[in-house]
């Protein structure tokens, strides 16, 4: 048996055990963990090819499993702290106050209101690089406004997801581009224009396609239906926690050499503290913390297990085989399939796909004479589109959770999002194919 066959069989074992576990009604997280463990067992049992290999002691297997589980620890901390902040803000009545304010101000101006909502959604992801952070901080707020504007449940959750995905793609922070560029030793320079062009075009198309049309808002009816904000909220009070958030993040950019590195988890906790201080009612902090952890267990669990699976796939050669399979495809086939490969792989591995596929693809495209900055920007806009796909579906699941969506995940939510998703993938594919022309136009 060659190493190719070995790694291929590992992939088969992973897929088979996952499918079997799902058939037995196990949770996705447990199904993935079992497939990772099965992959290690298969790795130990199957011949590994002609070349000599090092022994893999039992204790080292445990070390690999635990080490892999730490891969996305930072991301999990951000999820937890961001959700805690927004849940606290919601509990204090801040969300109700802002939503009522937006509805009062913009009920007669749908176009402007949608533009404002798009901007509100793009900012958190653009500065943190995380679509889940966008959903967890402003998703519920925007979803509530969209509901008042008469946007259907399916379209609401689809739009919140798509704007979150585009916010993650939006510059200045695009983690996929940054990780792939770092892996290829490229400076993260020149990405702003192509990323902004593709992400903003995708966001605006999504907004006006999904929510552009609708009946005028009946202000009185809408205000009657919206929850009342507790007395005592004022504009400055509602803005203060977000100002703390924006100022702490912006300060790191404005004074990078003198302002201390705070870290997003602490930034969100300080914003939470500001919420407690300005709130006219006393929020139940410990209850909110407990609810936050409970609600996010699935999301955090999947990130932990994805890390384990990634480590096991690397150990066994399965990850390398996938990467090799992609980069050895003929270029025409790559152009025809990357729009599918990238989102699907994102659904499986999350940010880990950026160095896995991104680095060899950069080398390949560079070698073939395509502009690597524009090409990587195009991929970095396609990847987050896959954040609603199984098995992880991190941002999709967060949108469902935040908007309390009760409809069908695939038949309702994904179906509604399909046209804008295809639009984003189409313009990104075009940007990749014409990367040199686009680079010329953008001054790259």
């Amino acid at each position, binding site marked *: 048996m060659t190493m*190719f066959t070995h790694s291929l069989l590992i992939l088969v074992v992973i897929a088979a055990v996952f499918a079997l576990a799902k058939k037995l009604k196990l949770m996705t997280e447990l199904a993935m963990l079992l497939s990772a463990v099965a992959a290690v067992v298969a790795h130990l049992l199957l011949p590994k090819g002609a070349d*000599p*290999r090092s022994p893999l002691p039992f204790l080292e297997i445990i070390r690999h*499993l635990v*080490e892999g589980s730490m891969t996305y620890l930072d991301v999990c901390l951000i999820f937890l702290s961001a959700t805690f902040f927004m849940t606290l803000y919601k509990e204090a009545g801040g969300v109700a106050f802002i939503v009522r304010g937006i509805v009062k101000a913009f009920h007669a101006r749908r176009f402007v209101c949608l533009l404002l909502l798009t901007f509100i959604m793009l900012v958190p992801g653009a500065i943190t690089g995380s679509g889940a952070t966008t959903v967890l901080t402003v998703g519920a707020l925007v979803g509530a406004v969209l509901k008042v504007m008469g946007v259907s449940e399916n379209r609401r959750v689809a739009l919140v997801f798509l704007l979150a995905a585009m916010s993650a793609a939006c510059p*200045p922070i695009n983690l996929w581009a940054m990780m792939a560029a*770092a892996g290829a030793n490229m400076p993260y320079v020149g990405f702003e224009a192509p990323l902004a062009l593709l992400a903003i075009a995708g966001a605006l198309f999504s907004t006006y396609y999904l929510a552009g049309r609708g009946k005028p808002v009946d202000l009185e009816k809408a205000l009657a239906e919206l929850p009342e904000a507790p007395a005592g909220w004022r504009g400055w009070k509602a803005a203060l926690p977000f100002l703390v958030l924006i100022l702490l993040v912006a300060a790191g950019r404005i004074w990078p050499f003198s302002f201390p590195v705070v870290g*997003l988890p602490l930034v969100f906790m300080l914003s939470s503290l500001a919420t407690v201080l300005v709130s006219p009612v006393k929020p139940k902090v410990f209850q909110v913390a407990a609810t936050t952890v409970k609600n996010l267990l699935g999301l955090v669990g999947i990130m932990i297990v994805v890390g384990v699976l990634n480590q096991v796939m690397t150990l066994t050669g399965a990850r390398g085989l996938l990467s090799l399979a992609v980069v050895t495809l003929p270029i025409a086939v790559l152009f025809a399939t990357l729009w599918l490969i990238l989102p699907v792989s994102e659904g499986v591995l999350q940010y880990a796909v950026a160095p896995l596929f991104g680095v060899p693809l950069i*080398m390949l495209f560079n*070698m073939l004479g395509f502009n690597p900055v524009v090409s990587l920007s195009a991929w970095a806009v396609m990847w987050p589109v896959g954040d609603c796909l199984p098995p992880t579906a991190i941002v999709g699941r967060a949108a469902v959770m935040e908007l309390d969506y009760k409809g069908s995940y695939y038949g309702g939510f994904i179906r509604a999002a399909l046209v804008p998703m295809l639009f984003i993938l189409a313009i990104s594919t075009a940007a990749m194919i014409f990367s040199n022309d686009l680079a010329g136009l953008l001054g790259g």
Partner: protein
Amino acid sequence: MKLKWAKIAVLLVMAACAAVAGFLFHEQRVYREAVAASPHLTQVKKLSDYSPAIKGTVNDCNVYVFDSGVPGGTALLIGGTHAEEPVALVSALVFTENLKVTQGRVFVIHRVNTSASTNTRLGEAYPRFFHVEAPWGVQKWRMGDRVANPLDSWPDPEVYIHYPSGQNLAYMDIRNLNRNWPGKADGLLTERTTFAAMELIRQEGVDLTIDFHEAELEYPVENTIVAHERGNEVAAMTSMMLTSQTFRVPIGMEFSPKALHGLSHREVGDHSDAVSYLFEVAEPMLDRIRGITDEELLMSGKDRFVMKAGEHNLLYAPIDESGWPFDLRIARHVTTAQTLIQVNNMLHPDQAILMEGIPSYQDILDQGTGAFLRDPAAAPPEQVYYD
């Protein structure tokens, strides 16, 4: 009731796994790497002797000093910038354990980013240690990460803005030592480390620095000397000599890009009088398209998936059945460093550094790296140090 016991059982299994892994992580973090230094070593200093910025931190590494007492040039050899590139560490070590300087001075650092060697790279499934067989036994070192351990430097900023250029880089690069030159006295751990190293270079009047690295075969900067513009002539002549006379696979020479900040070959040359060079050699274990990841791959440098990519012309270095073995990679780095210093002696006689005791390219290939490592247990205690 059954579910309750099942949950308790799962919790106990997880706790046991965490305890086992915790023990192994701790073992790697505290493992001391023995160095049996050459009898001709003059002095061992700490990097904090040059700047208090890193005093008391894990990155306050040893600086091995070989001073002939005869006026001449001064060179600094840097290993361990990226702890996942172990040939960089051992190449520097071959100098420390064998060197005799008869003119000028040589400074050697093995673990410039010690923190990075105290954990492995998440998701890359690296072994925790690697081993080299020597005539007297087996020598063992930590196999680390590309960047500093988050236990020593955390949290990262959302985006890393390089000092002083203002260039944006990925957040984790704040812990990547070769994105943090020339450093910052009050910055984070890696910024403070490079600041202290720059102080060493400035205070000791170093003439040339050599930063040892390894690179994936998919990476275009491969099997090469990257040189600051003031070192182009020396690097070009070294490359020509080695390619025509010694190496089977040629070694190239590249100009340090002026727009790419934070790297030693750019910033050391820009912020001191030293001329900065960086050496790269092929290491298949760093390729994302590699197959099974284990110590065997690290040492043999032989991978079927990488070879398949070569058949598709996707690589910047050749690879065949013989792979890129550890000894070959060491031999290239050690020989390139010696040759570059010799060429520098020719072109800049006022900076002459004369060295003895370093094995030749063929010696290392024939006898293996282990033949040039000294047994710490047999060496006089005053010659044994720990990184």
